[in-house]
Each structure stands twice: as C-alpha cells, then as structure tokens.
C-alpha cells in the first residue's frame, strides 16, 4: 500500500464528502431527506449539460447546484409546508431524480467534458502545504473541488458550532417547539438548510460527472447517495468528522483494486462488499452505545405542527 492509494482514496471520497455534508446540514434542521441519490443525479446531469453547452466551469457548477437545490425545494415544499411524511418524500425524490437524469441525459452519451474545462478541474499543488512529505502528496496535490471540499467542511463546522444562526439551527433540529417559542422562524430555517443540503448534493453529483468520470453515464452515482445517508450517522452529525468518514469509505471502495496484486486468499467479492459491511457494523455500534453527544437531532424526521406544541 503506497501513497498513491491514499491520494486516490481522497478523490474517491470527495463526492461522498459533499453529499454527507449536505445531508448533515439538512438533518441538523430536523429534516431527514433520503433524496440524496436523486439530487446528486440531478446535479450530475445538469452540471454536465451546462458544461457541454457553455464550456464554462462556473456555469456548469452553478447549474449543478441549482439542480440539486431545485430537488431540495420540492422536498421542502412537501415536508415543511405540507408536512408530508419525510421518509416517503425523500424516497420519491430519489426516484424522481433518477428519472430526471436519464431523461435529461438522452443525447449526452459519449460526450466528454471540454479539454479546457478539464484543465480547470485538474490537480495542482498548493504551495508550501503540497511540499509536506506524505501528507502533502495525499491531500494537497488535488483538484480545485477537493480543496473546496476541505474548506466547506471547516466552514460548516464553524457555522454550526460558532455562530448564532448555527445555534438557532441546532435548536430547530433538537427541539422545534422551544425554538419556535424563542422566536426562531422555524419554516425559514428548515427551508434554507434543506436547500443548502440539496445544493451540496448537486455539487457531489457534478464532481462525479465533471471531474471523476468526465463523461456522461446513466446512474453515475451507483448508490453513493445511500452510503452518504448512512455516513451521516457514522460521523455522528459532526461536520468535522465528515472528512474522515468520506475518505475512509472512498478508500474502502477502491481497496480491492490495490490488493488484487498481492496473493491474498480472500474472495474478491468479499472485498467488494467491504463498504457495505462496515456501514452495517457502524450503524449497529452507534445504536448500541448511545452516547449523548453523538446522537441524532432529537426532532429528526418529525414534522412540526405549531398547534400541537
């Protein structure tokens, strides 16, 4: 196992990082959005389409974020305004997003991201940091979207734990009625953070279609959205842990290709299963030892009716 494996794990983990962060922020507001996979696919297809039409990386990313945000708005209208069941609404959003992406993706097959846009997303070394032995090679010789992923994680952490709005947000997620009584605009908070979550999921999809693959393919996410939902629990709703979870699972996803060269007598199929086995084990562990600090927002998944308070 060498440094190149760890650098590849960071790349494989980056789409997860955006998606986990998006879902984490959504869940902090007490909304459980299972539409991550759908919003990722919407972002992936619109981002790619914008890339082909405009050739401008900013417009492509903007389009992806708008598409993810649009998916989140549908979910927010259903669950916040009309108080529909959050689980069902999220699942519906995934089905909708998958269909939306295959429909919009017709005719994009075989297209590739324009070369100058590939350059925009290409790896570059960060001065000084990139020269640190080992760590520099793993973390600071990457593309622009990997770096912005690091930044967003830190910003999200500061936002949630160090600002007044972040405190209000946590209050909405923990005890919606109390937050409402304290004069916090509950619906507004829920809307804004569900949409921010969708925007980040759109970016996660765009990372796959614009940087990782750089070409269009149906179902480009291949279940990564679901892993992201489970990883929010793994990260114990703490944004600072998101990076660890994302890169660990990025590594598990690709480890099979790196150990095939060794003469190990483990079935390759077991290794393919590793990310899923680890997810299940972690879900069990988290629910067994219910420490106070690492548990879900208390109002997660519960629709808020002011009259019932």
């Amino acid at each position, binding site marked *: 196992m*060498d440094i*190149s*494996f760890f650098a*590849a794990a960071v790349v*494989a983990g980056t789409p997860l990082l955006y998606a986990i962060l998006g879902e984490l922020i959504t869940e902090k507001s007490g909304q459980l959005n299972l539409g991550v996979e759908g919003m990722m696919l919407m972002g992936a297809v619109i981002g790619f389409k914008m890339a082909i039409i405009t050739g401008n990386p900013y417009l492509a990313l903007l389009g992806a974020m708008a598409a993810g945000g649009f998916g989140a708005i549908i979910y927010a209208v259903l669950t916040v305004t009309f108080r529909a069941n959050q689980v069902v609404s999220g699942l519906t959003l995934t089905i909708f997003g998958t269909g939306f992406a295959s429909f919009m993706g*017709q*005719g*994009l*097959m*075989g297209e*590739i991201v324009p070369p100058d846009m590939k350059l925009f997303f290409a790896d570059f070394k960060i001065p000084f940091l990139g020269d640190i032995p080992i760590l520099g090679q793993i973390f600071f010789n990457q593309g622009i979207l990997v770096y912005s992923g690091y930044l967003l994680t830190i910003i999200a952490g500061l936002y949630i734990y160090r600002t007044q709005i972040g405190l209000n947000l946590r209050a909405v997620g923990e005890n919606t009625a109390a937050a409402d009584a304290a004069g916090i605009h509950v619906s507004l908070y829920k809307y804004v953070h569900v949409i921010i979550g969708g925007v980040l999921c759109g970016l996660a999809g765009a990372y*796959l279609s614009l940087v*990782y*693959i*750089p*070409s269009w*393919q*149906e179902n*480009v996410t*291949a279940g990564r959205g679901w892993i992201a939902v489970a990883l929010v629990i793994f990260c114990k709703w703490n944004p600072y842990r998101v990076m660890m979870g994302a890169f660990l699972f990025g590594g598990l*996803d*690709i480890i099979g*290709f*790196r150990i*095939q*060269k060794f003469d190990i*007598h*483990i*079935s*390759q*199929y077991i290794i*393919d299963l590793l990310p899923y086995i680890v997810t299940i084990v972690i879900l069990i562990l988290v629910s067994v030892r219910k420490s106070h600090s690492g548990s879900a927002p208390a109002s997660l998944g519960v629709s808020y009716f002011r009259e019932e308070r």
Partner: protein
Amino acid sequence: MKKLTLFSVLVLSALIAFSGCGKKDKTTIDGKEVVMGFIYVGPIGDGGWTYAHEQGRKAVEKETGIRTIFKETVPEGAEVKDVIRSMIDQGATIIAATSFGYMDYVAEIAKEFPAIKFLHCSGYKMGENLSTYFGRIEQPRYLSGIVAGMKTKTNKIGYVAAFEIPEVVRGINAFTLGVRSVNPKAEVHVRWTHTWYDPAKEKEAAKALLDEKCDVIAQHQDTAGPQQAAEERGMFSVGYNSDMAKMAPKAYMTAPVWNWGPYYVGEVKKVLAGTWKASDYWGGMKDDIVQLAPITANAPDGAEAKVNDIKKKILDGTFDVFAGPIKDQKGTVKVPAGSALADKDQLSCDWFVEGVVGKTKGK
C-alpha cells in the same frame, strides 16, 4: 423557367415513384413486409457494445432498404418477452436480441412464434427459428496486443477486465499472446472490476495499475473510464468495442472493435431470398465482423507494419491466434506445437497463458 420547374418536378416525382416501387419489391416476402427489430441492453450512445450493434442496424436499413425498429436499455430479465411481443405487434418478422442474458427468454418466445426469425448474440441456445451468433474478437485483440507489446517501456501492461468468464479470459490470453509475440519480457497485469459498466470503478482499477508502473492500459469493459485514466497520467491505452479516440486523444492507440453490419445484412438478404435457416455463426476478421480500429499516431513506429503482416495471415487463414505451443502460468504446455486450441476449449477457457499476472478465479 416555368418549363424547367415543371420538368424538374416531373423528374423528381418519377424518381420518387420509381425508388418507392423498387423498395417495395425488395423488402417483402410473399407479400408480407420484412421488418427487423433490435433489442439493446444499453443506450445506443454508450460508445461501446450497443453503439456497435446500432451501427449494424443502420447498415441493414441502408443496404437492404427494409424497415427496422429498436428498443434501448432493455434489462436482461423477463421484460424482454414483452418487448419482443410488442415488436411483433409492430410488424417485426426478424428479431435480434443483442445480449447474452436474453437467451432463455428468447428461446422460450421463439417457440411461441414459429414464423418469426430470431437471432441471439453470444449465447449457445438454438432452435428451428433461433440462430446464435458471435465474433472472434480474439483475433483483433491479438493484434492490439502487438501494438501494446511494442509500446511498453516498463514491460508491464495493465488490463482492466469485467468478470472471470471464458469470454474475458480468452480475450486476455489472446492479447497476452500478441504482446509476447513481439516482447517476450512483457507481463500483462489483470484487475477485475466485477462490472461491465461503471466508469468510476473502471477508472480506479486502471489508476491502480498505472500506480504499479504499467504504462499501457487495455480493457474488457464497456466504458472509456480506463482510457481516461491513461490519458490523465500521460500513458497509453488500447480500447474495446468501438473507436475510442475521441475519449482519450493523447493515449488511445487502437481497439478491437465489432462490425455487426455484414452479419445482419447477410441474414436479412437470406430472409428476403427465402433461404434463411437457423445457424450457429462465429465469424472472424475475414468475415469482417470483427476489426482492429485504425492505429493512431500514439502507437509506436513499425507497429502498423507488424500488425498488417499478421493481419494478412489471419485473413488468408494461415495464422491461428491460439496455435501451439502455448504454456499456462505455471509453465505447463497446454497446447503442444503443431496443434491449436479447439473451439470448444476456447468457449470454456478458464486458465491464463504464461505472461499474465492475475487469477482466473475470484479468490
């Protein structure tokens, strides 16, 4: 001026009427229109397997003038039966099912509709009205191995492969024999992905091989993921299914590709002539059903001459890709000099030739 216009209108309408008549005579049999239906496992724009079959469909329309219909992304399950029924409702009299997984359903439904002619790709079940067909892609794979063997400087070639099945194992063997015919020191390192179609995973497998100092990447996969990995690292690649030059202009050298047109056109012509019979078709380069895509400027000097030399021998039948002596990975002689691997042994091939680094079993 008016006269000229009138004249051209007359000529044009005559032409249209004439061509219309001509078409009608050619495309019916016993007064019934011949229509061919194609069932695809992927989208026609996949740039790979389904795209190649779609080119075959276009060749049928162009060369025989019959009407064709098609359906994309049909899953390899019982749904294919509904698709076939709906095609028959739309008038289809010949149906080509272009993926292995359709086999059992096609065999079932072929009995239900004895008047319809069925063609099934890459399977082994046949019937009165059910043909099976495939191509010897191993021949152009051997040739692409020559290009890769001449190109490699590290003597390590990476091969991203889908599943441990005879079709893929056979391809890796042919490729390796081609590599070692020009570069006996080179090794072919195999990485299994367990998917036909996942660009992210395929690319990661190729990246792992590149990190192990492989400088040429080949593939038995349906996306261009491995090509893009080679392109990003400034290394070289051999594609599969169709010309992938557009996907990796600086890396791509050549690819073994499918050319289904001649087979489909031939079958339709037989149907129109009333001489069609169910058959077991396994064509090679001389039938033009498989080809080597044009060799690009990324290929090493002299590769084209060497390839053309062997290609000529394959075409005139004096060269067999699987001619002995062939040793397996342990050095045991599997095919002695003077003989060649029989078709049935090729179809059940589960061992690697000398020079392959990897295992044919998933453990």
